[in-house]
């Protein structure tokens, strides 16, 4: 059954803002398909974004949406979720937004395990501001602020968020949109903080400087640097070097979700006669 995308999009906001061939649309489409399959109502979904190309996503979807300030989407989303714990809250962010300026909020949202889904559109570059290197820009590649090749080591955002306490972490890419949709669907239904590290192509700001100015070639390149978890199992550490493993990389259904922990504490407080002077 095909998805009636018009039911989820603010059609009067199109054509969209993204460059032709941009991966952002692929990720947004996968997300809408997942929402549609889950049968969620528009009224019950909140989408919060920060600043960056990917953060414009909140303007296109017909949900309760907020386009906040750079890096702070997760902190705003935490406030929205805590005031409406029964509703679904989703954050779209770019790699810079999520892991550089918003890095502190990222690790603490993971630690709390609050029931928010974070979809990181990880295209290895600051696109909107003109192609400056981000924490996930591959070492050695060119960016406007690394014209001689990136000297910085790059972040593995899946390892980072697993280490910080997220309870569902999956990685996929725009090269596998159906798999991406399936992971997003799992993330949305997961009770706790879920992260999708979605590799995407910015052929304009990263690609053109690194011989991948053609979007198809860049998507091919993304395929070549990713390997599924099933295949990875059969490979040696030497073979896995410089490759990113895709798949559901971590899932923990036992760790208590934060709004539940919080409102359990509220019950404790309300049953105590002392302490609330």
């Amino acid at each position, binding site marked *: 059954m095909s998805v009636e995308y018009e039911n989820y999009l*603010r059609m009067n*906001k199109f054509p969209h803002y993204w460059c032709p061939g941009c991966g952002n649309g692929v990720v947004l489409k996968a997300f809408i398909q997942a929402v549609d399959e889950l049968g969620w109502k*528009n*009224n*019950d979904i*909140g989408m*919060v974004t920060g600043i960056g190309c990917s953060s414009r996503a*909140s*303007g296109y979807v*017909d*949900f*309760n*949406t*907020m*386009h*906040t*300030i750079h890096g*702070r989407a997760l*902190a*705003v*989303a*935490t*406030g*929205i*979720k*805590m*005031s*409406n714990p029964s*509703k679904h809250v989703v954050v779209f962010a770019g790699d810079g937004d999520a892991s550089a300026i918003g890095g*502190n*909020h990222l*690790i*603490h949202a993971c630690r709390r395990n609050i029931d928010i889904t974070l979809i990181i559109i990880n295209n290895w570059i600051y696109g909107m501001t003109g192609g400056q290197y981000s924490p996930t820009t591959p070492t050695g590649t060119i960016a406007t602020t690394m014209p001689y090749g990136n000297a910085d080591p790059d972040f593995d955002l899946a390892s980072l968020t697993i280490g910080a306490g997220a309870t569902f972490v999956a990685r996929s890419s725009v090269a596998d949109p159906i798999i991406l949709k399936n992971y997003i669907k799992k993330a949305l239904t997961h009770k706790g903080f879920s992260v999708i590290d979605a590799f995407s192509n910015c052929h304009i700001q990263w690609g053109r400087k690194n011989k991948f100015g053609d979007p198809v070639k860049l998507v091919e390149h993304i395929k070549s640097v990713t390997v599924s978890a099933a295949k990875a199992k059969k490979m040696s550490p030497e073979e896995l070097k410089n490759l990113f493993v895709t798949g559901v990389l971590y899932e923990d259904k036992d760790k208590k979700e934060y709004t539940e922990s*919080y409102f359990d*504490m*509220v019950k*404790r*407080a*309300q049953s105590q006669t002392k*302490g*609330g*002077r």
Partner: protein
Amino acid sequence: MKRAVVANGNEMVVEGAIDAGCRFFAGYPITPSSEVAEGMARKLPKLGGVFLQMEDEIASIACAIGGSLGGEKTMTASSGPGISLKQEGVGLACIAEIPLVIINAMRGGPSTGLPTRIAQSDIMQARWGTHGDHPAVALCPGSVAECYTETIRAFNIAEELRTPVYVLSDAFLAHLSTKVELPGKEELKIANRLRPTVKPEEYYPYDTRFGDIPPLADYFSGYRFHVTGLNHDKTGFPNIDPVLQESEEERLINKVLKRQEAISTYENYKLEDAQIVVVAYGSNASGAKEAVDAARESGIKVGLFRPITVWPFPSIPFQEVAASAKQIIVTEVNLGQIVYEIERIMLGGRAVTEIRNGNLIFDTRHPRSSAELSTVLQANGTPIRPNQILSQIKEVA
């Protein structure tokens, strides 16, 4: 029925917030405002509300903004460096028109400065701290009891005007315990934001059909809308049309300016026949009152003008006072902040009542003040003593 309690300024801020209907707080520990967070942490869970200690100051204000969009009356509190960090969130609340109360227990600075000591150094920050043109409302309680009443008023203004409101207390007031008499709960006026009554498909978050302060729907209430920190049109979506943006920027500022007569409260103390006018605010005004009393005993015609709202400054009431004064003494626990506003009003003899098509509209009813201006300023971490102010009064008498 009046209530008497023994409490400090931070505790009274907490009481005021709770009685104003605040059920959502996000903060980060910092001296000397931490007891506000501690008080909210004790009270909110019992009331089923949300208390969050966030990972940093920026997250705290961002989270409070989220909670406010979620439909709650929300507050954050901090001091010194923490207030500096919150500035980008202040701007977001201004432009997106999200009600929010920010408590600033002012301490010495810049930087880490004098964390446990008094200052009134954030007056200009409260006006101009975040970047860009924006409205500012800042209330400055002068006593522990006013920490309660002004916090309630801050929530009322935030809700009614859809804008962030500062309560500027200070390290001295925050930790000063004394007996306070509070108004009875039945006397309290509690305001709530205007919520839409139109059908969801007719709702726009910045729709001025019903006045210059549009109704604000709660997220998930069936009114789906978009909020952004970008300049936007009535639908909430980004817009860069210069004509629209001029009127929207002006509306943001005018919604405060046009209500300044109601917002900009002040106290006139022994001013009837005063030739010398002392201007003092916050906890510093108590020492100024004592100095005025002492000077009156020796026959000097002196009084005190105390702004309770510092932004927007009660310019017109001050003009009236300044017009007949011979000497004006500004005293503040900093090295000169509100004195510049005083000087501006005295020299121009004018107060800004509105901004219209790029022009500041002045109230020209009052002449320039011909009074001489002097100051008693101090920024060493200790309160200004009454005798310092008294000797300046005697100096100019």
